[in-house]
C-alpha cells in the first residue's frame, strides 16, 4: 500500500467522534463555568456558582455516599470475580463457563434490574421463600437501602471484572505454582505470594473497569435505591438537577469532575501497563 490512505479511511470516524463526542464534552466543560438561565440553558457570563454549589455540604454528602457505595460494590465484585476467573482459567470447559457468565449479561440491562426488584421487594421472591421457611414472620424490606444497591451493582459488574482477570490468569505460568508446591509451600500461600503479584496488572485493570462505571451509575441507585438517603449517587444528581431544576451549569460541573476522574483513572492504568511492558522488554534484552 504505497499511498497513505490512513487519513481517508478514518476521516468519517474522526468527523463523527469529534462532533458527537469530543465537542459536546468540551461544551459541557465550558458551560460549567457559565451562569444558569432560569428557564433552562445558560447565559454567557462567567461564573463559578456551579462549582461553589457542588462543593457545598449537600453535594459533599452525595459524593461521600457515591464513594462509599463504589468502594463496597467494587470490593464485593473483585472478591467474587477472582475465584471465578481462577476456576475458569483452569477448567477444561472454558467456553461453556464463559457462556454462563456472558449470556445473562446480554439480556436487557433494565430487565435484569427489574428482576432484582421482583426478588427484593416486600412481596418479592426472597421474602416469599423466607416466610415459607419460617425464618421471618413479616416481610422484610430488602429494597431501597444501601446494601441492596451495593449487591445489585456487584451483580451488574461481575462480567466486567471476570473477563480481564480471566485474561490475566490465562497468561500466567502455572509451573511456578508447581515449583512452589515442590518446594513445600501450601496452596493458599503459593496463590497469595505468586499468583496475585503476577496478575497485578489484570487486577488493577479489572478494578478500574468496575469502579468507574459504578461511580457514574444512574439506573441501579435510581431503581433499587429509590432515591433514599444513603443511596443517592452522583449520576442521579446530574440527571435530577438537569431535568428537574433545568440548571445546566451545575450538572455540567459534576460531569466535568466525573470526566476527569474517569480519564485519570484509565490513563493511569494505560501508563502503568505500557511502563510495565517497557520494563519487561528492557530486562529481557
Amino acid at each position, binding site marked *: 500500500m504505497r499511498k497513505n490512505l490512513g487519513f481517508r479511511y*478514518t476521516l468519517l470516524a474522526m468527523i463523527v467522534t469529534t462532533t458527537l463526542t469530543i465537542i459536546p464534552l468540551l461544551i459541557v466543560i465550558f458551560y460549567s463555568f457559565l451562569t444558569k438561565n432560569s428557564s433552562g440553558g445558560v447565559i454567557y457570563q462567567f461564573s463559578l456558582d456551579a462549582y461553589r454549589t457542588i462543593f457545598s455540604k449537600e453535594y459533599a454528602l452525595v459524593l461521600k455516599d457515591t464513594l462509599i457505595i463504589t468502594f463496597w460494590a467494587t470490593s464485593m465484585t473483585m472478591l*467474587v470475580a477472582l475465584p471465578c476467573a481462577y476456576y475458569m482459567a483452569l477448567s477444561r470447559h472454558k467456553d461453556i463457563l464463559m457462556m454462563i*457468565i456472558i449470556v*445473562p449479561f446480554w439480556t436487557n440491562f433494565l430487565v435484569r434490574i427489574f428482576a432484582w426488584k421482583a426478588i427484593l421487594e416486600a412481596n418479592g421472591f426472597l421474602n416469599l421463600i423466607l416466610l415459607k421457611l419460617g425464618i421471618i414472620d413479616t416481610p422484610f424490606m430488602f429494597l431501597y437501602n444501601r446494601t441492596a444497591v451495593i449487591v445489585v451493582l456487584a451483580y451488574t459488574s461481575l462480567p466486567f471484572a471476570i473477563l480481564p482477570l480471566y485474561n490475566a490468569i490465562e497468561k500466567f505460568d502455572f509451573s511456578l505454582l508447581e515449583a512452589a508446591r515442590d518446594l513445600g509451600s501450601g496452596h493458599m500461600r503459593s496463590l497469595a505470594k505468586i499468583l496475585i503479584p503476577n496478575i497485578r496488572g489484570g487486577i488493577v485493570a479489572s478494578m478500574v473497569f468496575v469502579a468507574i462505571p459504578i461511580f457514574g451509575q444512574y439506573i441501579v441507585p435510581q431503581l433499587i435505591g429509590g432515591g433514599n438517603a444513603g443511596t443517592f449517587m452522583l449520576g442521579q444528581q446530574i440527571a435530577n438537577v438537569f431535568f428537574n431544576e433545568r440548571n445546566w451549569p451545575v450538572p*455540567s460541573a459534576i460531569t466535568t469532575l466525573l470526566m476527569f476522574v474517569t480519564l485519570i483513572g484509565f490513563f493511569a492504568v494505560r501508563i502503568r501497563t505500557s511502563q510495565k511492558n517497557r520494563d519487561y522488554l528492557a530486562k529481557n534484552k
Partner: protein
Amino acid sequence: MNNLQGIQTPRLSRVVFILTAIFLIAPLLILIAYSFNGGKNSWTGFSLRWYEILFTRKEMLWQAFFNSILVSITAGIIATIVGTLSAIGLHWYRFRTKHYIQVSNFIALVLPEIVVGLSLAIFLTSLKINLGLGNVILAHVAFIIPFVTLMVLARLDEFDSSIIEAAEDLGAKDLQILTKVIIPIAKPSIIGGFVTGVTLSLEDFVITLFVGGVGSTTLPVAINNTIRKDPDSNVVYALSVILIAGTVLLVFTARRFLKYIVKT
C-alpha cells in the same frame, strides 16, 4: 484430579463459581416464573393474563419496541461502516491524526453513560437539533463507533498481512485489495461488531433518556415508564420473557462470532 495446568482442581473456587452462576441466572428464571403468575403480587396460579394484556393493550410498548429496532439497526449499520473503515485506516497506516483518533476512541469507550448522555443532550439542545428519533440515532452512532473499531482492529491485528503483499504482487489495485482481501477476512469481526452495536443500542437507557424527546421513546425508556406509572406493570415480566427468549435465540445463531466479541 488434574486439569489443563496440572494443578489440583480448585474446590473453593468451583463453589464460588457455581454460586455466582446461580446468582447471575436466578433473577432471569424468577422473572420468567413471575410472568406466568395470574395475580399481581402473590401467587394466584398459572396464567397467561399478562401476555394477553401485553399483546392487546400496550401499544406504547410496541411502538417503543419498533423504535428501538429502527434506531439500533440504523445506528448499527452506520457505526459498523464508519468503524470498520476507521479500523482499517488505524491498522495499516501512520498519519498525523492517528494519535488523536486513538485517544478520542479511548475516551469515548471509557466515559460513563451519564457523561455521554448529558453532553449530547446539552449539545443537541443548544444547537436546536430536534430530529426526534434522529437525535437518538445520532447519539447511538456516536457511542457505538469506538466499539466496532476496537473489535475489527483486534481481528486485523491477528491476521497475516503477507496476504496483502501477495495481492499487491499479483497486481491488485487498492480498491480490490480492500473488497476482495481485507473485508472477507475481517468479516466475522465486522458482523460481531454490528451485533455488538445493535445490542448496545437496544440496551441503552441513560443516553436515550437524556437525548430522546417525548415522541421518540425506545424500549428501555418505555419499560421504565411502565414500571413507574402503569398499574399493569406486571406486563413487563411478560415482555422480559420475550426479550430473554430473543436474546437466547440471537446468542445461539451468532455463537460462531462469539469468540471475536469476547476477546475484546
